[in-house]
């Protein structure tokens, strides 16, 4: 049998990339992402090198490794969660390989090896390698640092494989979930501290070399159990099949009362709850609700209302921005269909606009607990809400018209992939979305005080509402002008 190596598989992926439509644009985006990744690597590198000195300076009597160990448990937990949302095995690419004379064992090796090339697997290496080198230089070479290093890498790689199991098998997901609940209960309700125990275990590995066998064994076990699981999955009706979901959101008849418009909004709500990608994006929008916690908890920001306006805009407009920037790309999969249906652009656009405005209303209501931070904070949120309701929503809708990269609805976005719709025009729209509201707050605020700042925001929002019809006319014209261009890029 001819062998098919990881290298061949990579070559295929390379072709897939360069032969994809609009690959030039994607390349530019990749390069930008590349810079972003480099930036992160530099930050982590600094963290690794500087980390040693910072830790020894802060508490010179303690071994810095022991301090790190106290944090590791939490790190691995967070790592697993983030991976769960952003990492997937490149399994679907193996389908054409199945009929070729390549042993299944090799296919499995390829899939597992390629999964190692994930951003998350590099974080511990990039942070800890420089740390360990500095440690060895400063304290003299010893094996113990390096066994500790190996142990952490093993654990991190193990979680790489666990995530796959959790994603694909309900049983493993249940086992992991059960374990977490049990560990949390132990930590919370008994004097036993799981995190401490974990830290002590890691200390032990650092002190006595042979304990490193445990993480090594764990990694071996994780790999072999994944390989075994994968082998069973390499059939069209198992792991390679599309997952079939049960129907959710069937009863949204409430919207039918809103004649002429309700069914479009109903459809958008189904789009959001029934598609992985849409759920992911909307979840991000929901996370913006907590944005205020960064700023409102710190006295220095509370004294700078201009900064607080930013949080107000994100809190009330999180969903609006994350959802709105992909209008009309959300409907890209069936855009030709929509274009020959009896629905006017006006109606289509209005339904999206109303959905965004509605979300601003909901977010503003939900943000009520922020009143804990004082009446000023609450007033800023409300004023920002009115701005987003009237003006932000329609600007977001306008910005979507320039976004012609299709969205694959039911496919999970990888880490950083949400930037695929990045473009210069989208960058420009940050001006009216974020800079303008800050200005209309800041200018009156600087001259006439806090209340005038609020009035500036509210007034701009009301202006948006007042001229909504005219603004919609402009957007409609833009959509008309870009119709064929949008269709052709959505159909690629």
């Amino acid at each position: 049998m001819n062998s098919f190596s990881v290298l061949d598989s990579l070559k295929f992926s390379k072709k897939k990339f360069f032969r994809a439509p609009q690959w030039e644009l994607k390349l530019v985006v990749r390069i930008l992402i590349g810079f972003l990744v480099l930036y992160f690597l530099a930050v982590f590198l600094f963290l690794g090198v500087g980390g040693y000195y910072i830790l020894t300076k802060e508490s010179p009597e303690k071994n810095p490794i022991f301090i790190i160990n106290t944090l590791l448990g939490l790190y691995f937990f967070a790592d697993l969660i983030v991976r769960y949302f952003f990492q997937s095995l490149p399994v679907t690419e193996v389908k054409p390989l199945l009929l070729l004379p390549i042993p299944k064992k090799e296919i499995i090796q390829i899939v597992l090896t390629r999964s190692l090339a994930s951003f998350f697997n590099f974080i511990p290496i990039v942070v800890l390698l420089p740390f360990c080198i500095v440690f060895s230089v400063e304290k003299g070479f010893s094996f113990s640092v390096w066994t500790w290093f190996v142990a952490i890498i093993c654990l991190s790689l193990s979680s790489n494989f666990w995530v796959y199991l959790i994603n694909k098998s309900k049983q493993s997901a249940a086992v992991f979930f059960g374990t977490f609940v049990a560990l949390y209960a132990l930590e919370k309700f008994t004097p036993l501290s799981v995190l401490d125990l974990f830290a002590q275990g890691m200390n032990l590995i650092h002190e006595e070399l042979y304990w490193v066998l445990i993480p090594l064994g764990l990694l071996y076990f994780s790999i072999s159990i994944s390989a075994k699981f994968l082998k069973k999955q390499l059939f069209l009706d198992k792991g390679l099949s599309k997952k079939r979901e049960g129907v959710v959101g069937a009863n949204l008849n409430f919207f039918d009362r809103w004649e002429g418009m309700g069914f479009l909004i109903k459809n958008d709500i189904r789009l959001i709850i029934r598609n992985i990608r849409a759920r992911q994006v909307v979840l991000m929008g929901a996370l913006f609700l907590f944005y205020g916690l960064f700023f409102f908890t710190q006295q220095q920001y509370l004294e700078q209302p201009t900064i607080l306006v930013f949080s107000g805009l994100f809190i009330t407009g999180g969903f609006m921005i994350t959802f709105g920037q992909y209008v009309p790309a959300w409907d890209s999969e069936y855009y030709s269909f929509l274009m020959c249906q009896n629905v006017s652009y006006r109606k289509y656009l209005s339904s999206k606009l109303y959905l965004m405005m509605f979300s601003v209303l909901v977010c503003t209501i939900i943000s009520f607990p922020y009143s804990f931070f004082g009446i000023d904070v609450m007033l800023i949120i409300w004023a920002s809400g009115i701005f987003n309701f009237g003006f932000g929503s329609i600007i977001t809708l306008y910005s979507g018209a320039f976004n012609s990269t299709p969205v694959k609805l039911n496919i999970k976005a990888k880490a950083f992939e949400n930037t695929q719709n990045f473009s210069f025009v989208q960058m420009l729209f940050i001006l009216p979305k974020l800079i303008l509201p800050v200005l209309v707050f800041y200018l009156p605020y600087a001259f006439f005080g806090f209340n005038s700042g609020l009035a500036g925001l509210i007034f701009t929002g009301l202006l948006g509402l007042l001229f909504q019809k005219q603004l919609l006319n402009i957007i409609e014209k833009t959509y008309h002008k870009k119709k064929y261009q949008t269709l052709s890029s959505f159909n690629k």
Partner: protein
Amino acid sequence: MIKVKNISKTYSGQVVLQLPDLEIPKAQRFGLVGNNGAGKTTLFSLILDLIEASSGEIAINEIDVKKSEDWKPLTAAFIDESYLIGYLTVEEYYYFLGNLRGVSKSEIDQWVQIFEPFFNGEILGQKKYLRDFSKGNQKKAGIVGTLIGKPELVVLDEPFANLDPTTQIRLKNLIREEAEKYGTTFLVSSHDLTHVTEVCNRIVLLEKGVIIKDIETTSETLKELESYFSN
């Protein structure tokens, strides 16, 4: 029903479609045949205003498709699976179309029962999303969807491909019945010469964007087409 006036479509200097005048009267079952790259889908896309013509114009019921959207209420099309909304169930998709074409939920529930034999029990009440249907069943669902609200013009691209033999025969009857009962105009493209000659009363043969033959279907048509394509 449709008037094509001197239309052409060029992609980077290459002419892919070049039609002088073509008129399709109401209630005609118009068949379009031709090898790959003949320009069938291009013509359909031009009629549906999904691509821009390089020159000339197309009118549906005297409405210039480029200038006005008033042809949309009269027209329905199923070109491929992207004409379905993948995350809806069949029923939800039909209600959605009903909303667009002014047909109520209960009317659709009742109307759709006529198609039970065509659906062969595999479409309605499935409790799964359209994206999870097989290709053939997606096609069945899509074709019936075009008939909601009795549009005057129905455009179907390759409707026979991916269908099982029983459904192919039922589809032919369905098209004939609809055209007869409601005067629906059908535009059908197909690679299957037998089916298209059986179902259409006029056949246009395209080759590299140009009309080669424009014939009224007779018992000789199939032979004529077969002899053309075997050369």
